[in-house]
């Protein structure tokens, strides 16, 4: 019994520990060494570089997660559902491979793919000398992240579509419903829960994704500096830890909102 009490206390303390240290350290670091009160927070909220990072992050999440990964993942799951085994296998393997390779490796693969001299993309498009990462840094990392993360949506929607009764789809098709009408009236009501789960999770992950740093490091001139990269550059690289932790706390709060929304949803679905 004593042992069990220890095991029980352990995770509880762990939770408290995690919670308190994060918040207390954040709070203390925001004040130390000289007490500046809320100055760090007001500074952060009025800093144009912070606004820039926030807008870029929203663009990144919207473009690569909500539009890119969800749409591509769903379209793939929908078109492949009746495809032949080997074809499906090949496409799924490639999409999954993009997802499981270590981020340092995929980052270099994309640097090579988009390279100005001798990059595969320039070769294919016949546009030698275009420096994609310098001229279009945001577009580059949005396309990159779509490539990187589509696998999760593909797997989730693949499983969700498997649960749609084929008889209902057959009835709709015989009644002459167009593909769009089939999707809207038959498929969508069945996968609504999955769609929400998928959107919230990939939003959370993309919002916190640090991989863009490995490709553009936020440059050139902060044109691809998303919030995680901004925090790193300001807090760790420039050493402004107090200011950096103020931004971290803002980011934690945004995370908290997304996560609370998700957990509420999960509980509703369970009960």
């Amino acid at each position, binding site marked *: 019994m004593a042992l069990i009490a220890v095991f029980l206390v352990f995770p509880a303390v762990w*939770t408290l520990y995690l919670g308190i240290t994060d918040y207390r350290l954040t709070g203390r670091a925001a004040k130390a060494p000289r007490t500046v009160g809320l100055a760090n927070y007001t500074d952060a909220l009025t800093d144009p570089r912070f606004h820039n990072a926030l807008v870029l992050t929203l663009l990144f999440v919207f473009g690569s997660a909500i539009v890119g990964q969800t749409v591509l993942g769903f379209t793939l799951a929908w078109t492949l559902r009746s495809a032949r085994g080997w074809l499906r296998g090949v496409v799924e393997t490639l999409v999954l491979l993009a997802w499981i390779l270590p981020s340092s490796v995929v980052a270099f693969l994309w640097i090579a793919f988009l390279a100005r001299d001798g990059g595969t993309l320039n070769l294919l498009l016949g546009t030698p000398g275009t420096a994609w990462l310098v001229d279009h840094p945001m577009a580059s990392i949005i396309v990159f992240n779509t490539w990187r993360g589509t696998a999760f949506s593909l797997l989730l929607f693949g499983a969700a579509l498997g649960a749609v009764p084929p008889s209902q789809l057959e009835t709709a098709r015989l009644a002459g419903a167009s593909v769009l009408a089939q999707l809207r009236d038959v498929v969508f009501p069945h996968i609504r829960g999955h769609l929400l789960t998928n959107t919230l999770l990939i939003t959370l992950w993309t919002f916190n*994704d640090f991989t863009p740093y490995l490709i553009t490091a936020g440059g050139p001139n902060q044109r691809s500096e998303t919030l995680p990269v901004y925090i790193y550059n300001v807090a760790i690289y420039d050493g402004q830890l107090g200011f950096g932790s103020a931004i971290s706390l803002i980011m934690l709060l945004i995370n908290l909102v997304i996560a609370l929304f998700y957990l509420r949803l999960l509980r509703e679905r369970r009960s």
Partner: protein
Amino acid sequence: MNGPWTVRRALGRIGFYTFVAVVTAFFALPMLWLAATPFDATPGLTPSVPDLTLKNFRALRNNPYALGSLWNSVLLAAGTAALAVLCGALAAYSLSRVRIPGRDALLYLLLLLSSIVTGTAAMVPLFLLIFQLNLIDSRTGVVLVLTGGLLPAAIFILKDFMDGMPKSYEESARVFGASPLRILRDVVVPVVRPGLATIAVWAVVNVWGNFLIPFILLLDPDKQPAAVVMRTFYTEGGAPNLALISTFSLVYSIPVVVMYLFVNRRYGFRFYGGIKG
């Protein structure tokens, strides 16, 4: 009646294959480089049909940090997996067997914390915490931070496994006078072994690819894992050494792909889907 239908179907087929071909190209093209260049006698940025050779792999031995960093990755991954499985199993077992008020709330709180306190949002507090504990540049510090991040989800999953285990097993062991720890070791662990393996593999894959935490917590290149060291191959010191980068990428990627194939064959997609989906 028959005519338009066949035309439409043919168009549909063409559209389908075009779409699949474009998507396949989109996903395959960036990866071509990884497949071709390590074996190319003249490694460049453009993937080409390689002039087969294995001499590029010599670059791995010539670089002072390449092999050491892979070993560091192994150490970090093994340490984190072991700690996460041990603490996760103990916590999940007790949470599964004892009814206390607020247990579910506690679990939800844990899960909530693990999803909002990610490496990036918490990088400053984590850095300060490790700094004040004097664990900067220590592998122990990295293992502790990574374990802390993985533990809530690990407890959540393991508890599901333990809930599914009949209590009668433990009761009969207790009748024979076995102590709680002994019951855990001889009765519970063998039954939930698939769950423990899942957590271990999941932890290894996570740590193997993690860049940010070791990047901010380890400064000594002798201690940095492959994810961090690889970046120094292409950002510092002039022209990137393509022979080294390509062979290193391949060697560094193979373990995760192998583990993924292994898990996929044994447990299916529950590995990823079940954890966060």
